[in-house]
């Protein structure tokens, strides 16, 4: 079944038609080119002409148009993203082996082990074609992880859909969930967490973000560069087809409008089997040390891979494009350069290693073709059957794209929005509070996500120590020592809409707190910044504020951003999504056996609430249920978060706590419900002392979303030690109840009792009712 370059058909006469060579371009300066249809702006096209000193060829135009697209070049976001680098201190970089700018960041977790992780968006394709869009989102992020030299070990998918009862939502939920499952399950990667949020602002722009984690030894780190003059350039994996042409430039870098043509052909089609084989094949290449540099083919396909490899290495590359193995022989050179066909990789191999490389390809039945070699000319030369069709300085394609300092200003409506604080329904008596808790736990954003997560494999690889519905996913890295990592992703679009600076800090605070809640020490950050159109100055202000907030918060918490992704133009018919900065935090455990689950189980253990409860209902899930969005989000006190994290990590390590659950959306009511439902073990809770201490009413105690809080269960024998530790760190802590393995209920004494069966039914019915 194996075909390689020697078996590939020679370029036929028909493939020589109409080739726009460099010589032809020089001779025909006035020829009209379709730069606007390819997504370039007039000033950008002029700049290309200026760089080249002539008009570009059709192939060059294709390359510049995709590489200078918003998706690939970050031209609107670059000036802001700089802050992630500027605000990093040496101390924060202590664990960073590879930082921003490579395919993914790499973090040292000790004992010679390293972890690479990154979150990316696949929003636009997933709206157009939900199954393939979501599937290839997983495929793309996994290839980024492989490119670093790592074995992928887990994935997570933060998802945002329109209103749960909108007629288009089932199409997207079914397609996206089965796309993630269909691809991820077939790769043998456990899906260990993520988020599912419903909100009408995401109706025309669902967010499909995908995070992958990989594990490697320090010495195995690979980078995307083409060094060593005379080394060979090889393309391997799936064949190149006509799918995904313009995916990055036309699809991901523009808003959707009703009067524009369907963009379905711009979506790529995935083959998870090919990717699984590619993973094993790449790992074998790394083990045998036969590749010098490697780059996955994602957005902008061969254009991206050749220009990035060349400009990161010795600066030159010579490629014969007719040697690319094609699925569709009618593709033009420009289409071949732009195609985003999946499951492809490009590598640089020394002449001495080509035979070893080929042997590994043959073993795994992977197709490959040698395309050319590394040069020191400083030029990327691409030929079509010997005729030069691209002659560029690769840096001008890959790195010197346009940079926009787009205008931005604070929205005029923001003051009025922030003054509109929640003054709606506040249930007071026991029956009303009981009904409110049931309503909250059945709400689309708070209900059990089992119907979705049960479509993902969480067991494969045998190293999953925690997964949904616990606070973070935890995987073991080293089977001998138990060394492992925890990862959580979080974002709250409503908070960010009310105050994008604080919203970004809150997203980081929650992910950081979640990781610490499982007992892991937070180390590093990845982010996926989902926004509307950067050409709208108010959206651009939201973006600028978000980056400033996140960079400041990373600095305060001492965790660096290692990489990520920006997704703009999430906007349909002039309506932008809420600013949604999805933040992923990675933490490390010496031994994952110490991880703390989110639910209690041992009768008689004391339940403590850590942190202070304020009257913070603006932007809350409760206000959302009452149709209100206004005011200011909760205060993000990062000093408090640091102390809380230290308490959670230390008490986990020293065996003081057996359960811990962070308080976030839905406040104490949600945390108590989830902790009780986790293992089906009830509790008796008293909130009156809390109300008195913090000066809040029972409703606020249960539904406020004040930050810096967590509940923990503590064995009787550990209570003194635990109290002493909290006191020593001067952190508010209050015993609010005990685990009751007999009563089968969440009993908030003096207010209401909720049998767990009733609570579970309400919690678990919502998604099946809408989608099963």
């Amino acid at each position, binding site marked *: 079944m194996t075909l390689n370059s020697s078996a590939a058909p020679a370029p036929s006469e028909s493939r020589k038609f109409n080739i726009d060579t460099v010589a032809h371009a020089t001779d025909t300066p006035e020829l009209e080119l379709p730069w606007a249809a390819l997504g370039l702006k007039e000033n950008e096209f002029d700049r290309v002409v200026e760089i080249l000193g002539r008009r570009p060829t059709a192939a060059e135009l294709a390359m510049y148009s995709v590489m200078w697209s918003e998706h690939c070049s970050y031209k609107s976001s670059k000036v802001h993203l700089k802050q992630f680098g500027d605000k990093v201190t040496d101390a924060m970089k202590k664990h960073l082996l590879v930082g921003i700018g490579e395919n993914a960041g790499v973090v040292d977790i000790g004992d010679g082990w390293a972890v690479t992780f990154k979150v990316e968006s696949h929003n636009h394709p997933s709206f157009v074609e939900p199954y393939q869009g979501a599937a290839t989102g997983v495929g793309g992020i996994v290839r980024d992880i492989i490119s670093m030299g790592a074995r992928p070990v887990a994935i997570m998918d933060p998802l945002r859909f329109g209103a749960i009862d909108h007629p288009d939502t089932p199409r997207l939920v079914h397609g996206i969930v*089965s796309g993630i*499952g*269909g691809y991820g*399950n*077939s*790769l*043998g990667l456990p899906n260990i967490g993520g988020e599912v949020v419903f909100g009408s602002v995401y109706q025309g722009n669902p967010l499909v973000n995908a995070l992958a984690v990989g594990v490697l030894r320090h010495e195995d780190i690979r980078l995307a560069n083409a060094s060593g003059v005379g080394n060979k350039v090889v393309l391997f994996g799936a064949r190149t087809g006509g799918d995904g042409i313009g995916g990055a430039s036309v699809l991901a870098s523009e808003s959707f409008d009703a009067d524009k043509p369907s963009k379905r052909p711009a979506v790529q089609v995935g*083959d*998870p*089997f*090919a990717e*699984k*084989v590619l993973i*094993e094949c790449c790992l074998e290449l790394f083990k045998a040390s036969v590749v010098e540099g490697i780059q996955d083919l994602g957005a902008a396909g061969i254009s991206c891979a050749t220009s990035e490899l060349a400009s990161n290495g010795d600066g030159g590359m010579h490629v014969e494009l007719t040697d690319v193995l094609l699925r569709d022989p009618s593709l033009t050179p420009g289409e071949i350069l732009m195609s985003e066909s999946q499951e492809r990789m490009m590598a640089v191999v020394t002449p001495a290693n080509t035979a070893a490389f080929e042997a590994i390809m043959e073993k*795994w*039945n992977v197709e490959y073709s040698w395309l050319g070699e590394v040069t020191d000319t400083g030029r990327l030369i691409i030929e079509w059957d010997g005729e030069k069709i691209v002659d560029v300085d690769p840096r001008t394609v890959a790195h010197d794209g346009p940079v926009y300092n787009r205008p931005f200003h604070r929205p005029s409506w923001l003051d009025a929005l922030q003054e509109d604080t929640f003054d709606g329904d506040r249930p007071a008596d026991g029956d009303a509070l009981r009904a409110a808790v049931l309503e909250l736990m059945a709400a689309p954003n708070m209900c059990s996500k089992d119907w979705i*997560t*049960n*479509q*993902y*494999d*969480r*067991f*494969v*690889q*045998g*190293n*999953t*120590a*925690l997964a949904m519905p616990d606070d973070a996913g935890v995987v*073991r890295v080293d*089977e001998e020592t138990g060394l492992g990592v925890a990862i959580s992703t979080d974002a709250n679009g409503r908070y960010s809409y009310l105050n994008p600076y604080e919203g970004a800090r809150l997203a980081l605070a929650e992910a950081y707190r979640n990781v610490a809640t499982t007992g892991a020490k937070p180390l590093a950050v990845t982010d996926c910044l989902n926004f509307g159109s950067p050409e709208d100055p108010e959206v651009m202000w939201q973006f600028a504020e978000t980056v400033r907030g996140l960079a400041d918060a990373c600095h305060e918490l001492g965790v660096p951003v290692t990489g990520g992704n920006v997704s703009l133009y999430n906007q349909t018919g002039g309506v932008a999504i809420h600013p949604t900065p999805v933040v992923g935090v990675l933490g490390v455990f010496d031994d*994952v*056996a110490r*991880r703390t*689950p989110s639910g209690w*189980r041992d009768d008689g253990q004391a339940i403590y609430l850590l942190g202070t409860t304020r009257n913070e209902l603006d932007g809350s899930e409760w206000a959302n249920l009452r149709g209100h969005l206004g005011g200011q989000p909760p205060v993000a006190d990062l000093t408090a978060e640091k102390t809380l994290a230290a308490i959670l990590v230390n008490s986990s390590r020293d065996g003081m706590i057996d359960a811990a659950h962070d308080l976030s959306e839905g406040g104490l009511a949600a945390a108590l419900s989830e902790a009780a439902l986790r*293992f089906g073990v009830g509790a008796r809770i008293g909130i009156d002392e809390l109300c008195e201490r913090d000066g809040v009413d029972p409703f606020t105690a249960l539904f406020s979303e004040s930050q810096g809080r967590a509940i923990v269960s503590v064995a009787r024998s550990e209570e003194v030690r635990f109290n002493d530790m909290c006191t020593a760190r001067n952190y508010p802590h209050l015993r609010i109840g005990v685990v009751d393995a007999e009563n089968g209920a969440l009993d908030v004494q003096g207010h209401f009792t909720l049998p767990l069966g009733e609570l579970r039914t309400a919690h678990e019915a919502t998604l099946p009712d809408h989608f*099963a």
Partner: protein
Amino acid sequence: MRPEATTLDSVRVGIVTFPGSLDDRDAARAVRLAGGISVPLWHGEHDLQGVDAVVVPGGFSYGDYLRAGAISRFAPLMEQITMAASGGRDALPVLGICNGFQVLTEAHLLPGSMIKNNHLHFLCRDQRLRVENSATAWTSSYAAGDEIIIPLKNQDGQFVADERTLDELEGEGRVVFRYVGDNPNGSRRDIAGISNAAGNVVGLMPHPEHAVEAGFGPDSSAAGQVGVRGGTDGLGIFTSVLKKLVN
């Protein structure tokens, strides 16, 4: 033939890897945790390397293209396994898990086949099973009627066969595992796993290799809750075959 194993840690169990196999490393770990030696076997080879037993693990071999298991059964190694497993009670013990079970039915080592789950979704959950036959090479560590909880995860897990075959399987005691509680996929007669007539070849859809190590398994065991992800009810399947080979 190699000399007979005399201690558990001298029993060698081959784990087959096809392109697209996913749970091969998990199966190897299960064999090691049960006390045996795991031996990787590549699908394209013609030599069983003298292993004492074989596990055909889960995954999506060849992407499940055509039908689950339909391409894999033609692998050179599968010919060796089919021959070695077909010699009666003392023939090579073979266990097919999930995709491995599908491969064994395609290879006609086991009857019936698996079609798409009746709800059409991939389903991953902790699953309660009853061990119906403890006399096979892979179930002797249990007593008939024992219940176990191990993970279930598949999209094509609905076991089907014609009525005569089903009656034959029931009559000969070849239904080895049965789903307890909700049938997760519409499998005929709640069948989760079966054996051949000799009892050396067993296939099941749920994953015993994911319930062998406390801390990384399902949240519960049939005996009750055992700590977060603490279920190890699947280990007995691997210890069964090791003990049989030593005795």
